[in-house]
């Protein structure tokens, strides 16, 4: 069973990897990270914070796009193109297929997030190196008489390429050492502190979003699924605010009795939605990252994420089990 689910997951991963959209998104993320670097030069203070902030935001957002836009087509495409006929008729259960698809997408997201983390770490390292004094010495390619100094140009280029290579290697170390590359005494490692943990949190957050995408995709059209997944994401991100909103409304009115009819509906809607929707704020600690604070990940938070995901997948399996494939 596990082997078959793994086969489906790996095939799903293959499907995503051979999808051009993914590369567009990855390219986009690299552009954002370099853009963050450029934007940080506009600041007068806390440049690293801005780069880290925008970069981590970009990773999260791109992961969301992958989860939504790859996730919604995941099951639907198989139904639409009838590839599912030959798969369900194989000796597997329907939920195997669903879980395999889900895990495949999650694997895709995880690999992509880690890839982006790598690139982002490299950007942070490179940024640190190019801000060093050596850079400015190498930058003198015009000599005292104002002629181009080719040695200077080459030194500059060499420095640039060498720094980039170093940055990429150290960035990779960050990912493969689970963010602990600082213990090796790598220069500039402080800039990447906590990044790995944030990426792990992003993957956990996307685990929930992906489950929703798979759920919606198993019974509705891609457009509608995308819409509903995004709605879930929004409510999930805001559910603390939503609850506070309802609470404040009652406080302002001075008790439940004072609420008008519409307000009562709004109150119950908010409270119920806030409780039912996944609490994604738990996984949103990018602000702590930007401030170089500790990223906290409690066992309860992880358990919550896993349990919620399992619940959504179970619903998806129930829906999927009852479906007739057209």
């Amino acid at each position, binding site marked *: 069973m596990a082997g078959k689910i793994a086969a489906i997951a790996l095939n799903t991963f293959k499907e995503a990897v051979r999808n051009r959209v993914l590369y567009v998104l990855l390219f986009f993320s690299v552009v954002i990270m370099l853009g963050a670097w450029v*934007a940080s030069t*506009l*600041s*007068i*203070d*806390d440049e690293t*914070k*801005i780069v880290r*902030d*925008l970069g981590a*935001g970009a990773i*999260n*957002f791109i992961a969301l796009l992958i989860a939504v836009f790859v996730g919604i087509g995941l099951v639907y495409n198989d139904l639409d193109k009838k590839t599912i006929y030959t798969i369900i008729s194989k000796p597997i259960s329907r939920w195997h297929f669903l879980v395999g698809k889900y895990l495949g997408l999650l694997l895709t997201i995880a690999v992509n997030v880690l890839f982006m983390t790598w690139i982002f770490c490299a950007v942070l390292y490179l940024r640190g190196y190019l801000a060093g004094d050596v850079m400015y010495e190498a930058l003198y390619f015009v000599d005292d008489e104002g002629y181009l100094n080719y040695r200077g140009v080459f030194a500059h280029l060499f420095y640039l390429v060498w720094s980039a290579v170093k940055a990429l290697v150290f960035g990779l170390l960050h990912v493969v050492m689970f963010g602990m590359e600082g213990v090796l005494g790598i220069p500039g490692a402080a800039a990447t502190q906590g990044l790995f943990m944030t990426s792990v949190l992003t993957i956990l957050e996307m685990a929930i979003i992906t489950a929703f995408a798979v759920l919606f995709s198993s019974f509705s059209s891609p457009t509608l699924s995308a819409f509903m997944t995004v709605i879930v*994401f*929004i409510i999930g*991100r*805001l559910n603390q*605010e939503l609850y506070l909103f309802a609470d404040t409304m009652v406080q302002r009115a001075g008790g439940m009795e004072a609420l008008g009819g519409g307000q009562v509906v709004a109150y119950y809607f908010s409270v119920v939605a806030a409780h039912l929707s996944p609490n*994604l*704020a738990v996984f*949103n600690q*990018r*602000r*702590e990252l*930007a*401030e170089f*604070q500790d990223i906290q990940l409690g066992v309860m938070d992880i358990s919550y994420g896993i349990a919620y995901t399992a619940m959504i997948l179970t619903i998806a399996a129930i829906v999927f089990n009852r479906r007739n494939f057209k």
Partner: protein
Amino acid sequence: MSRLLEGKRGLRDALLGVLVLVLLAGAVLYQNRRFEDLGFRVFIYEQRINLPPSDVLRFATLGYDSVYANWLWLVSIQAFGSGWRTEDGTAGPIFNFFDTLTDVDPQFISAYRFGNLVVGDQRGDYELGRDLLRKGTLENVRNYDLPYLGIYNALWMANEEADARWFAIMLRRMEHAPNFMLRLEEFIERTAGRYEMAFEYNVRYWMDYHLAGNDVERDLIEGRIQVLLDQWYKQELTASAERYLEAHGEHPTEMEDLLTEEFMPAFEAPTFQSFRAAMDRRTQQFAGMPARREIPQEIVDEVIEDSTETIVGLPPCPWGTWYFIHEPTRIAYPERRDLFDDSKGFPYLTTAQGLMDIVNRHNMNAQEFILDFYREHERRPTQEEIAHLLTRDPVGGHYVYQREAEESPTFGVFYSTGQRRLADGADPRMGVRGPDPHRFLPDGLRLAPRLSDFPEEEQWGREHGYILDDGTELWEPGVTDPDLEMLLPPEDDEMPQEMPAPPPAP
């Protein structure tokens, strides 16, 4: 046309490419003209600083709030760069901007700092600036920058000791704040003239460092206690001088004038000697105590009680010297008050320690002058060229420049004869490293050293016009424009120099 191009696809594509380029160039040029017509819009940020409520923004950012905060941050910097005008010219809208920004991302330290800089230091609304810092301090319990800036703002800019104290309390609660920041609390009390409080803090610090085995820091605290007690006594002396001034209409001429019950009542204050004695007595007691932060209040109270004495007459200067009235300053002060900083009492009330500081400063200035001169001319200055520095010193002698000297063959030696006499113990009156002087000297010999106390100095003084025919001593020949600046009391504390400059304006 089409027939011409038949079968020449490469040529056709090239022509189409050129067409695209031409069209693009046209579009770019047109855009450029439009942009030029836009002109420079000064008020472009006026709209931008009117942000929606932060609740709405938090909803709208969908968890990407810190990204949005960064955007606002960059906007704020651009707005600052372009002058950042507000409709009514007040700092209120700017404050609101930073308030909203920090609502969206309460951990944005730079925003608090920059907000305080713009609202407080640039617009002069220190109260609003402090509000931002207060919010930042409460939101970021681990950042000691903000309360520190808060103290800076409250104490140096706005003279609000109460606010400064609040920031100091917040600072004390932070775990990783540097030591000197923690001691700001004491500094605030001292600046505010609450010497009892400051003394209590220092006693606590002293014991902390002693228990921690940090002798260097403990000795620093000891020095601070000396400074503190000195300020305390000077305050008392100043009060008595004020009473004297009120009674007689003129400043006292000698310290003895003040030392009566009428002008100088007995007062309770710690003395350095009894403080050290109290501490020495407790060394045994301390030996058994664990090194920890909180010293029981009873022990502190006990130490304070043991240190405190009833001081009758002249207080004992913590450095072992004496308080006296410096005559040249006393003469100059009523005439040239603009030259003196008398915010902390009358400047003529001083000690040998204070005068020695002045001499040292003069010596250092002179050495610097000689070095600069050497750099410029590649030789040492002659006596004529350095003559403007060869004045009298405040301790009864004059400055001498030995162009060729064994001690320093390259640049010569610059020194003060009065200081040398004191250091060598040849003039024991002020007790600098010498035996304590008599409290009241016989034969009308005064504590304040004068040129006329020594024959060779008196001769020098008369030759150079420092002593007039009637025996009056001047600080500089010709009272008309005495450069009295070097008489100003020395910086009595290192703290203001430790304060960093506020963040630089972009």
